């Protein structure tokens, strides 16, 4: 069963309106918190497209976050551009880096691909730490007043009657929310298309996919490139709010990939609502266990193992199996009236 379309659309529109209205009705700390959640959600949706639908289990997504962030910093500090233009440059730089990365990584499969992407990401971190103009290994900060001078901040400040810093937070929040919505809609449309069907065939069996005319390299490269672009945009946007960048923070495998994998795996890998469920669970755990130091990471790890053992396709898939409710079904159903009618049972006869 899927929820009726008008009801589902109305509920989604209401939730979305509430989320967009948040900077006007909630304290700045809540907006900042939600920005962090949305950042992880966008990263998880990108990783889900790679691992959940294309079978590309990358452990090197932090490369695109880092390159996106550094390209954005370079655009502001070295070229004097507006941070929002810098974000776009960040996305494009990450996509450009994905080309040589794919050239090397696509020669590997499975666990070797995962390790290969991690290695390339670390090479990128070491390379960036040699960039003296952006602080080398110790990193650099955004020039004072960058956020305040960002395009649209003045208008938002007047509209919401808040400080420049709060207006900048509201702008980056809205942009991240829009990126998350765009990712979700674009993923749904893509996966329902001919190419999405081919991508899922590749994930299930690349050899068989080739034998029915699907070009695995072309499709996987396209998804890898698009995911790099989305991850780069997200990384650049995240670091506008952080305002300071270092190679270790921007290329952190824990922050930008390990947590993201955890979110996707417990939420539901290979499902569109999975990362949304996963990020909510992750946020609740993070808040509940914030005072317990390393125990927090141990609990996350144990929960990940339990989900992988007992609900291999995540919490969302378990929910769908038990209730029959699927909010964003990707299944292609046969044309109505083409299926044979079930034979009447003996009892009914």
């Amino acid at each position, binding site marked *: 069963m899927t929820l009726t379309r008008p009801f589902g659309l109305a509920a989604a529109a209401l939730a979305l309106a509430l989320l967009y209205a948040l900077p006007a009705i909630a304290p700045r700390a809540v907006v900042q918190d939600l920005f962090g959640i949305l950042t992880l959600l966008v990263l998880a949706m990108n990783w889900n497209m790679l691992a959940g639908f294309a079978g590309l289990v990358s452990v090197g997504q932090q490369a695109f976050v880092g390159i996106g962030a550094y390209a954005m910093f370079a655009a502001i500090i070295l070229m004097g551009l507006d941070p929002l233009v810098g974000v776009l440059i960040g996305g494009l730089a990450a996509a450009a880096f994905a080309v040589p990365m794919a050239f090397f990584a696509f020669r590997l499969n499975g666990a070797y691909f995962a390790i290969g992407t991690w290695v390339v990401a670390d090479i990128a971190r070491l390379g960036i730490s040699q960039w003296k103009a952006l602080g080398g290994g110790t990193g650099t900060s955004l020039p004072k007043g960058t956020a305040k001078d960002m395009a649209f901040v003045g208008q938002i400040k007047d509209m919401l009657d808040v400080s420049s810093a709060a207006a900048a937070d509201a702008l980056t929040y809205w942009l991240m929310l829009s990126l998350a919505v765009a990712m979700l809609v674009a993923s749904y449309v893509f996966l329902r298309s001919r190419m999405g*069907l081919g991508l899922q*065939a590749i994930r299930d069996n690349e050899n*068989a*996919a080739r034998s*029915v*005319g699907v070009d695995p390299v072309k499709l996987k490269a396209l998804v890898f490139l698009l995911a790099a672009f989305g991850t780069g945009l997200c990384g650049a946007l995240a670091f506008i709010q952080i305002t300071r960048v270092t190679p270790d923070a921007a290329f952190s495998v824990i922050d930008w990939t390990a947590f993201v994998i955890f979110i996707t795996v417990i939420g539901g890998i290979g499902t569109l609502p999975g990362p949304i469920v996963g990020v909510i669970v992750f946020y609740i755990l993070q808040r509940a266990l914030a005072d317990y130091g390393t125990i927090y990471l141990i609990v996350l790890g144990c929960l990940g193992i339990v989900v992988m053992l007992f609900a291999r396709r995540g919490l969302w898939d378990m929910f769908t199996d038990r209730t029959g409710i699927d909010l964003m079904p990707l299944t292609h159903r*046969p044309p109505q009236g*083409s*299926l044979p009618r079930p034979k009447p049972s003996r009892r009914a006869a």
Partner: protein
Amino acid sequence: MAILSLHSVSRSFGALKVTDDVSFELNAGEALGIIGPNGAGKSTLFNLITGNIAPDAGRVFLDGRDVTRLPPMERVRAGIGRSFQIPQPFGNLSVYENLLVAARFGGELGAGEAPAFCMDILSRTGLAAVAEKPSGGLSLLQRKRLELARAMATKPRVILLDEIAGGLTDAECVELVATIRAIHANGTAIIWIEHVLHALNSVVERLMVLNFGRMLMIGAPDQVMASPEVREIYLGIEA
């Protein structure tokens, strides 16, 4: 007229020559059977025809066009469909979706025409009742049928069947042979590798014997099976 022809095709893996100077022609609408002991190079020959393996020497022609350098995806679109010896369904997709992928990509059908086309094939292969089931949970016969149906959905002019009757009960085999006969009757050329000889001989017009990668003999099934050399190599019956 030949729809598919191989000219002196050879392939080695290291020092082992698995396909050794094989040449033959398949006429349009013809059914050709391939037999041979395990390790004779039968599946490798299929992989050379479909492009999954590149030959060291020789050429493959489809309708007179040299397809030797074409990748597998383009050969599918050119009209070569195949099934695998061990069924390889897209396990997370439904039976219907398995065919839809093949029809949209290999068959190059549009979103409007592909659904009815797939349902027609599912009906003809006895899979319509399980169209919406995940293909990962099918029985062996159903998976074999799916292999056949998915290959048909690519709209092939030549279909390659790799031991599709292997592992089936006699009753299941009879059902499958009836389906293959119907496909052949529609004018699709077939090359069929099989160990179940009674099934094979009830469909094919010619039989080819491979041994150590070389083509030992090709001809009418009765003539080939009567050959003392074939009986000794393949059936282990001394002349």
